[in-house]
């Protein structure tokens, strides 16, 4: 595996994906609208005397990010099917892993975009103070996002080519998405409640290990998911 080439090809795939998304912007706007809707729903649904903002904010944040991730992963391979370009990609003399990495990068950029919209909106709507914790919060979000997007991208790649597995994707995906997501929610809660950083270091470590394990696994396993 020639690593610079692998990364270059991955970047080529990712930047093409991002260009296409930038041209149509459908997915990112759907995500943004969804963020607003979620915030409105919780805004009206919440009895301000019973439920305080800080208690809800972490869950709301991660629900919208999950939505963005699901959207991104659907988009990633849908795009190739729509343009019937998947065969072309598979035929190109590039490491299979670079297709995976490319899709992963594009998905991460996409989800990061939604997160960049989501965090300030949350702060605005719910009057949650995020600025004091911005550094750790961003680190936390980044780590957790990488984890579940990495697994999700792998599975969604697997299922675009096989009809049966498509039914299985959700079932397969759930057990893998739940751990990073639940750590992230818990850690975000502590963070926004103003607890000391040391309380969430454990979770951050867990997330980092999860990311390393699954990104590595996915890079090595991806070639096996496409016909060789």
């Amino acid at each position, binding site marked *: 595996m020639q690593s610079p080439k692998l990364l270059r090809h991955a970047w080529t795939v990712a930047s093409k994906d991002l*260009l*296409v998304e930038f041209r149509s912007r459908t997915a990112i706007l759907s995500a943004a609208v969804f963020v607003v809707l979620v915030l409105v729903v919780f805004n009206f649904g919440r009895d301000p005397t019973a439920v305080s903002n800080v208690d809800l904010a972490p869950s709301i944040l991660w629900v919208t990010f999950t939505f963005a991730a699901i959207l991104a992963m659907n988009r990633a391979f849908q795009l190739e099917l729509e343009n019937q370009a998947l*065969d072309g*990609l*598979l035929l190109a003399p590039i490491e299979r892993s670079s297709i995976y990495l490319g899709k992963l990068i594009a998905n991460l950029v996409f989800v990061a975009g939604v997160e960049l919209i989501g965090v300030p909106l949350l702060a605005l709507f719910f009057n949650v103070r995020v600025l004091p914790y911005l550094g750790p919060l961003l680190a936390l979000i980044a780590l957790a996002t990488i984890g579940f997007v990495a697994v999700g991208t792998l599975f969604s790649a697997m299922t675009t080519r096989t009809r049966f597995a498509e039914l299985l994707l959700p079932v397969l995906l759930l057990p893998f998405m739940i751990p990073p997501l639940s750590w992230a929610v818990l850690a975000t809660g502590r963070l926004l409640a103003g607890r000391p950083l040391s309380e969430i270091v454990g979770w951050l470590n867990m997330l980092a290990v999860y990311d390393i394990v699954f990104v590595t696994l996915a890079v090595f396993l991806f070639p096996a998911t496409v016909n060789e």
Partner: protein
Amino acid sequence: MLLAEGLRHSFGAVRALDDVSFGVSSGQTLAVFGPNGAGKTTLLKVLAGLILPQRGRAQVEGGRRAIGWIGHQPQLYGQLTVRENLRFWASLYDVPESEFLLRKDSLLGRLGLQDHEHRRVSELSRGLVQRAAIARALIHDPRVLLLDEPFTGLDRMAAEELRELLSEDAAEGRASVLVTHNVDEGAELATHIAFMRAGRFAHFAPRAGRGPQQVSEDYRNAIA
């Protein structure tokens, strides 16, 4: 340069390839004719490595990098321009920038796409998309061409140009497999001819100077 040995493949109960073997060497062009559903597309996909055959083996000298492929679908992104598409595929094939520019200009020029270079593919007419798909398949100067009905949607000038491109390629030592329904279009380019039917080669032989007329007749006899 291209070798197929005992290829078999079924989709469920449908036998799409049934013991197909042949070879194509440098400078040769194999034209494959056959009725709809005979397994021609499946054969090309197996040769390209897009389908793993259930039995048998297909081999292309030089691997994936050597293959230029025109399929039923253009494999272009509608939201990108012709130029952006070509650049994307070229960079996946590690074509250096300078060579890319040269080949792109020559291909677009010959295929009459100069004026459409900066238009999005989704805005082009069918024939123009097909021309762009041809440019895409040739942008990395492939040694082996796998062409599935490449004349589809082309007008007469473009079809003429494609025939010329293909015969130049053959003269330069490329090997090709060409699938088409129009004997007039395919016969003269071919050095070898195969008739396919229900997943099998009903006939496979050098063309030996036979014209479209005769090939047509042979086809009728072989398939009926």
